């Protein structure tokens, strides 16, 4: 036990960015936190991390990261993307079922969990396919899939055209108290669109995705939640009008939660520029007004979490005309600095900001995680809040290169990550 879970002392870091503490880790948990230099009787650290000037934060919980296995190993591998996760301070992540084959059978889920466990990095929580093959016709064995390790059920971005099937899937999930994770997108209206319907798409001659694509589906989903009582998590909301509907539905008391992708906090349709296919993303980047509404919704509790929506795409699928390029942006390693940059610009309190990456998503997963307390699990990251970082392909661990943020300079970088009390990642940090 002591070999797989070494004693670690994190010395002099600011816990949650506020209070200087020495953090003692043993047996995979936080044994104690003391004033700096106070010492802990009988504690013999195997490693000491010098964390002066660094923040000691809970490991991030990312509600969507595509690891691309099985089936899309040419885009990314479990090895590369799990490495990217811990390099981004992400210690727990949810992966959507849109692999090839999709995660619709317990064996596939067990294999993924097993492979992830062997890597012994971040905790991986798969979502099971809501319907077989994500085809929107037949329910999956949700109970079996849950036993295999699925934390919820989703169509990912695959359309579920038949409302009757959606209704039955929600009823069935409710039977066993499972959570349904759903994108809010009408399967018809703007289904062939590639950019936000508005002046930019009009001018550029790009087929549009209207805001009504999101709002119409939200009306449908909320009515089905009222009918079935199922717990619903809404993935990647994008529009001011959509968020207003979510706000009202929450006020009504519907059992819903919602997230947004971190790149939507920063980009608008104007960033497409000269058809930059790195800005081809689902749902599309919308207007400045929508972006401001997302900021507000994160602050007033309409949105519960920020995720990376990490989606590595190979060059062959990205270096295409905008409308033919595969949607998706990488983000595991940029999740924390991009969130902190947003919080700084909007003057959002640190505690509130961190909650959107830790306790907020933990609640959606119904897990006791995302906090730093004595006796708690030692999933942590050490963060240098002011370290400048020029984003280049070379500085990223993910196999994907598809992000509009390459070439930008960000402030703040993860220096070390601990999962279950083991040091799994460090970057230029002194240990003794």
């Amino acid at each position, binding site marked *: 036990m002591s070999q797989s879970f070494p004693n670690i002392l994190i010395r002099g870091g600011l816990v949650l960015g506020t209070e200087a503490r020495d953090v003692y880790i043993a047996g995979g948990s936080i044994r104690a936190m003391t004033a700096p230099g106070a010492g802990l009787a009988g504690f013999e650290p195997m490693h000491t991390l010098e964390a002066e000037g660094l923040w000691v934060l809970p490991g991030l919980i990312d509600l969507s990261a595509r690891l691309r296995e099985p089936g899309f190993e040419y885009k990314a591998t479990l090895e590369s993307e799990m490495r990217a996760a811990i390099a981004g301070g992400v210690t727990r992540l949810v992966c959507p079922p849109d692999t090839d084959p999709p995660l619709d059978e317990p064996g596939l889920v067990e294999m993924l969990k097993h492979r992830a466990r062997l890597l012994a990095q971040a905790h991986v929580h798969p979502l099971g396919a809501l319907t077989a093959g994500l085809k929107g016709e037949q329910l999956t064995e949700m109970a079996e899939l849950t036993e295999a390790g699925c934390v919820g059920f989703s169509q990912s971005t695959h359309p579920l055209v038949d409302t009757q099937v959606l209704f039955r899937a929600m009823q069935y999930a409710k039977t066993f108290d499972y959570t349904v994770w759903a994108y809010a997108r009408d399967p018809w209206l703007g289904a062939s669109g590639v950019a936000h319907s508005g002046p930019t798409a009009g001018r550029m001659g790009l087929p549009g995705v209207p805001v009504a694509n999101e709002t119409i589906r939200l009306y449908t989903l909320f009515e089905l939640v009222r009918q079935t009582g199922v717990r619903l998590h809404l993935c990647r909301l994008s529009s001011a009008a959509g968020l207003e509907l979510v706000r009202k539905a929450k006020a009504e008391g519907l059992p819903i939660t919602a997230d947004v992708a971190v790149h939507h906090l920063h980009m608008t349709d104007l960033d497409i520029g000269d058809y930059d296919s790195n800005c081809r993303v689902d749902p599309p980047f919308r207007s400045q007004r929508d972006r401001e509404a997302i900021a507000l919704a994160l602050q007033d509790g309409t949105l519960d979490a920020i995720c990376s929506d990490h989606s590595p795409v190979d060059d062959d699928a990205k*270096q295409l*005309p*905008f409308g033919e390029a595969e949607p998706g942006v990488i983000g595991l390693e940029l999740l924390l600095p991009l969130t902190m940059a947003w919080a700084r610009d909007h003057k959002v309190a640190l505690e509130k900001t961190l909650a959107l990456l830790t306790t907020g998503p933990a609640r959606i997963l119904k897990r006791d995680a995302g906090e730093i307390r004595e006796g708690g699990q030692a999933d942590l990251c050490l963060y240098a809040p002011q370290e400048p970082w020029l984003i280049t392909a070379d500085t990223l661990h993910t196999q994907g290169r598809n992000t509009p943020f390459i070439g930008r300079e960000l402030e703040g970088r993860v220096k070390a990550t601990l999962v279950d009390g083991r040091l799994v990642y460090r970057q230029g940090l002194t240990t003794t």
Partner: protein
Amino acid sequence: MPKSIQLNARGELNHLLSTEGLPRAVMLQVLDHARDFVDLERMEVRNADLLAGKTIFNIFFENSTRTRTTFEIAATKLAARVVNLDVNKSSTAKGESLLDTIDNLAAMKADMFVVRHAQSGAPYLIARHVNQVAPHIHIMNAGDGRHAHPTQALLDMFTIRHFKGEFQNLRVAIVGDVLHSRVARSDIHALTTLGVPDIRVIAPLTLLPSGLREMGVTPYTDLEQGLADVDVVIALRLQNERMRGAMLPSPQEYFKHYGLTEERLRVAKPDAIVMHPGPMNRGVEIDSLVADGARSVILHQVTFGIAVRMAVMSILNRTHA
């Protein structure tokens, strides 16, 4: 927005991808230079061996014999060598990627690519790529998706200038399927850049894109209101596949409400001209009496189109006088 990829560091035209963002001076340079190639007495385009020794590839990812021919004639009149490639029939059908095709053609000692593609923005991808791998190659956009058809717009401007003189006091109406039209978008940007104060588009709501007002255009759904007192009418082609479906119920109903007829044109200025980028659907967007009538300048457009493409080719290759 990044700095325009169309211009080089000295502000000269390096690729022609769109009329949007094209400086007024560059547009006027093209129009002035095109004027040198036209013999107005005989309505003929002169030959000039300005591109002798140059090789121009017509790379058409989307078929269009007519458009390809106009570029081919322009290049031939400039004494360039022309290679025609219908890529949709050859390499991409075999699974070769767009940029692989471009790499292969760049290796064949090309000086210019004339590109047509069904996807909006494809020429930008190609221009960015050749800037990296073969920066001496110039890209001419011969139509990309719904986005742009800059030489068509420049020949339209040449035609308007020829018949109307100046741009500053004109009222111009564009009638038809604006939503899917690269010609409309390129015309709108050219007209605003050249200072036309009143630009209108006329179509049913199913055929109008969002953001028209932001482009400096007034949308109309009523043909006669939109045509009132205009100096120039540009009719757009309605694609066959859009005549019946979720956009429009039938070509007959379209013609009844949006077809250009002599009677409808009575509200326009008496000396208004009628233009069409071709090929026309007679009896759908335009009545034969109008197409063949006194206001029609459609055949002038074809002649001027050769001269304008010659002007752009020689300016891109820095061989113009």
